[in-house]
């Protein structure tokens, strides 16, 4: 769904950008720790959600997105702990490694029909996780720990949340720009055609596998990048951190926000999910129950996601109408 935003003057845009960047730059000084953590988690899940969404755009529902977080994280762990690579090198190499895996696997599984791709992506995620849990070099079920803290860059330190806030927001902006550009370019239109009807697209001469694999690889790149940074930020990882539930979060984030917008959807959905997750009152079982009921409720009362609230708001105010699908 395309949305036409209300136009703002250049001065307003600049001011908004300055405010937001200023906020991010100094957030670590005034924001309470709990909110710093939520910011970082928000940035992480927004990026992962966007990655999931771009695969949806080409018509496939990936139910195992956490596998790329896992591969990225473990690649970074191995590079830094076993091969003594510096952080930035490990970061980029992990993302590239993840993309290569996505390329190989995607070439096989992306040709499967909707439901089959769904289950295979889920199963693939579990298989990778179980294999890592069985492999001693990768820490087996205990995982990798004591990730080195990246050295500081000028005034930016990584021993506090400062550097991490910057890094994850930077990755988020990079991903958002990439996906935004893809969406609004010819590629995006092709994705939309493929997503809507692969057979029809094929009959028009668009060899859709190329575009599907492309989307899958780019998605894996960013998710792997986030996964690598996440592993080092946490300081330790183990296979329990990449179960089916985490793939579920990627989907939740995108769908709650609204699948219509590749950038704003996940941003909003991630915000809602992380705030909800952090502040949910703790009683055993209640968390899962409430999360489950929330999902069902949102699907029914807000099926187009949170961003649809904006549309109805705009409509009521007599603003620009929404261009229908």
């Amino acid at each position, binding site marked *: 769904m395309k949305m036409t935003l209300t136009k703002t003057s250049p001065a307003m845009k600049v001011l908004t950008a300055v405010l937001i960047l200023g906020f991010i730059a100094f957030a670590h000084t005034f924001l309470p720790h709990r909110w710093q953590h939520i910011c970082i988690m928000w940035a992480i899940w927004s990026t992962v959600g966007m990655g999931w969404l771009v695969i*949806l755009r080409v018509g496939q*529902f990936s*139910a195992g997105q956490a596998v790329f977080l896992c591969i990225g994280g473990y690649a970074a762990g191995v590079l830094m702990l076993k091969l003594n690579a510096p952080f930035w090198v490990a970061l980029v190499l992990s993302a590239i490694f993840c993309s290569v895996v996505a390329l190989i696997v995607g070439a*096989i599984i992306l*040709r*499967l*029909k*909707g*439901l*089959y791709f*769904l*289950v*295979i992506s*889920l*199963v*693939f995620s*579990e*298989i990778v996780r*179980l*294999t890592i849990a*069985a492999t001693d070099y990768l820490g087996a079920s205990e995982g990798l720990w004591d990730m080195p803290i990246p050295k500081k860059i000028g005034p930016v330190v990584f021993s506090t949340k400062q550097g991490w806030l910057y890094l994850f927001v930077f990755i988020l902006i990079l991903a958002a720009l990439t996906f935004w550009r893809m969406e609004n370019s010819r590629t995006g239109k092709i994705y939309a055609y493929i997503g809507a009807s692969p057979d029809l697209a094929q009959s028009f001469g668009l060899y859709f596998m190329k575009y599907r694999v492309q989307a899958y690889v780019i998605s894996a790149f960013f998710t792997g990048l986030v996964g690598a940074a996440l592993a080092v930020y946490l300081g330790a990882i183990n296979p329990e951190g990449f179960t*089916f539930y985490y793939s*579920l979060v990627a*989907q*939740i984030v995108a*769908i709650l926000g609204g*699948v219509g917008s590749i950038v704003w959807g996940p941003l909003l959905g991630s915000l809602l999910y992380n705030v909800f997750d952090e502040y949910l009152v703790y*009683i*055993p*079982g*209640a*968390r*899962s*129950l*409430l*999360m*489950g*009921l*929330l*999902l*069902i409720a949102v*699907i*029914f009362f807000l*099926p187009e996601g949170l961003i649809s609230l904006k549309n109805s708001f705009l409509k009521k105010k007599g603003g620009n109408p929404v261009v229908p699908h």
Partner: protein
Amino acid sequence: MLDIFIFWITLSLNYVLLATGLTLTVSVMRVVNLAHGNFYMAGAYAFLVFSERAGLPYGVALLLSILLVGGLGMFVEGKLYRRLGGRIEPSIICMSGVLLALEGLAVLIFGPDIRGLRPMVTGTVSVGRSVISIERVSVAIIALLVMAALYYFLKYSRLGKSIRATAQDREAASLMGVNVNLISSLSMGIGTGLAVIAGIQITAVYHLSPFVGVGALCTSILIITLGGMGSILGAFLAAFIIGVCDSFGASMIGRYYHLLSFGTVMLILLVKPLGLLGIPFVERK
């Protein structure tokens, strides 16, 4: 060697029970019910309440559990899944919601501990030099009976034919006067009921906890993918293939034995992307 062979047969029939319900619901609803594993778990807990807390006899408790959780499945289908009109994304999220809610409920009500469920029969029987528990044999027999009953039901009864028609082509069936909504509910009810039976039988052999659902789900999904979604015979065959991988693999390969079943599925999917007996069907939009 005979032991492993018997283990293979009984394990595969366990899997048959698990997967059949799922493949039935997939054929009619066109979406994989991710909450299937947790209905399996919920059925076992319902049985726990009926047979132990309420002290009812085995058969009565079994029947009540099937009705209760099967009914819950039908409710979920009618009120939730159907309203979503078959679109994949909202359906999957809705099912994930049901999955989480069921697990949360189980932890809230029963606590996270592992528990034992009363088996239908106890005792052992000797087959040659091996001894197997009657419990396992009974699970295997029940699986076969259920499959046979399902087969005859689907093939010969009117209702069964309606289900098959709806599975094949929903629109055409509805044009022919089949009440597709009722059929959807019914197949969901049957599918969930099968999950309940599986839950009660299989967790009695192993153990029950709120977290057994996810494992059951992954196994069932692997089987129906291999067998072909919507194909009951396919699920039957696939269950035996995955059973071989798990039974022989566990004793011979060790740590990485799960790769065997996955690798097999991937290989077969390369050749037959729709699974062994899968038929292409039009996804509802």
